[in-house]
């Protein structure tokens, strides 16, 4: 039975390609290619290559859209601020198995357009700005962010899913 697309993972990756924050609500997802957290890390890792490869052609927009499809259910979308901070959102199309796929008939990425993710990225960006505006936020730190408020805000964004897409 098909469910609405959801957002199981939101990752914030710093300028030096260091992970700043990873929200991961439901992984590992059985019957997808993400079964361990290590898979997730490797996956996020490979999104960086896509950012790097596309960067020279990008000058104006921060929206990198669909980075790549992971499997039938999952796809990674990206956004990079002008200061080199990367946001990666992994979308779960919610089709369970092949029956779901065929019932929608659209195949991967058919249901979700890049533009649908824009408001999600905008909200993440806003929360990120609030986070780093804090005078106690240490830009040089290589540790992951520990801010309860930020965690909650990001979790809320993930929970809300993609506005207008059901």
């Amino acid at each position, binding site marked *: 039975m098909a469910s609405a697309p959801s957002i199981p993972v939101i990752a914030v990756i710093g300028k030096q*390609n*260091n992970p700043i924050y990873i*929200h991961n609500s439901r992984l590992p997802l059985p019957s997808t290619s993400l079964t361990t957290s290590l898979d997730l890390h490797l996956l996020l*890792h490979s999104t960086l290559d896509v950012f790097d490869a596309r960067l020279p052609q990008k000058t104006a927009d921060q929206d990198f859209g669909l980075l790549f499809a992971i499997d039938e259910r999952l796809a990674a979308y990206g956004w990079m601020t002008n200061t080199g901070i990367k946001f990666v959102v992994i979308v779960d199309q919610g089709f369970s198995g092949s029956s779901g796929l065929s019932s929608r008939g659209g195949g991967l990425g058919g249901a979700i357009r890049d533009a649908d993710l824009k408001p999600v990225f905008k909200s993440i960006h806003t929360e990120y*700005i609030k986070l780093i505006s804090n005078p106690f936020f240490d830009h040089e730190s290589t540790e*992951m962010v*520990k801010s309860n408020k930020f*965690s909650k805000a990001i*979790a809320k964004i993930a929970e809300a899913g993609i506005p207008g897409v059901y």
Partner: protein
Amino acid sequence: MNRDTSPFRPASTGASPTPKHASLTASTNLRYSLTRKSIYDRHLNRTKTSELSKSAFAFLFGEMVQHAQKKVYGVQDLEKKLNQHGYAVGQRFLELLLWREGRTAKRETRILGILQFISHSLYRAIFQKPADTLEKVRENEDEYMISDNDPLVNSYISVPKEMSQLNCAAFIAGIIEAVLDGHCFPAKVTAHTAPSDMWPGRTVFLIKFEPEVLEREGLRHGST
């Protein structure tokens, strides 16, 4: 997927890729008021146009200078401290500014572009006026100058003779440095007093880019 070195830095405990279901982030023990709004509940643009008195800043900045002065050896050290403060402010200001520019924000990839961004957009956002000039140092390929006829932070400063080298606009130099760094144009920025007849307090910010910036500029855009 075949990178030699992990782009992820040696992970801290929170980031180690252990197969766990839960979120990787440690939860916190901070208390929050249930009835009051915290910074995460407010709109970021709330303070965009809000203003405070210039004197409030002058006093705060002044005390910052005084305080920094107690723990330093000489003018250079003091300027470095001010630069650091400016850097912290600049990092945050830049993110706020770019976020607000939203769609219109352009990713600056050229030296000239980023310098124009600083002398116009950034300067206007912080000081409500553009910088006065932007020019290239003729003798040195890697140096540029932005000048400000009357830097805000210096409006009340009268430098005593024994410290004539001091320019407290090192604070602004720090802001500029942070913005350049934020755009991946690492550089050293220093403030120098360069009075003109009209403007006794005129200050020049000398921007010296790191070699890799010029190298990249050459690769991307042909030598300049």
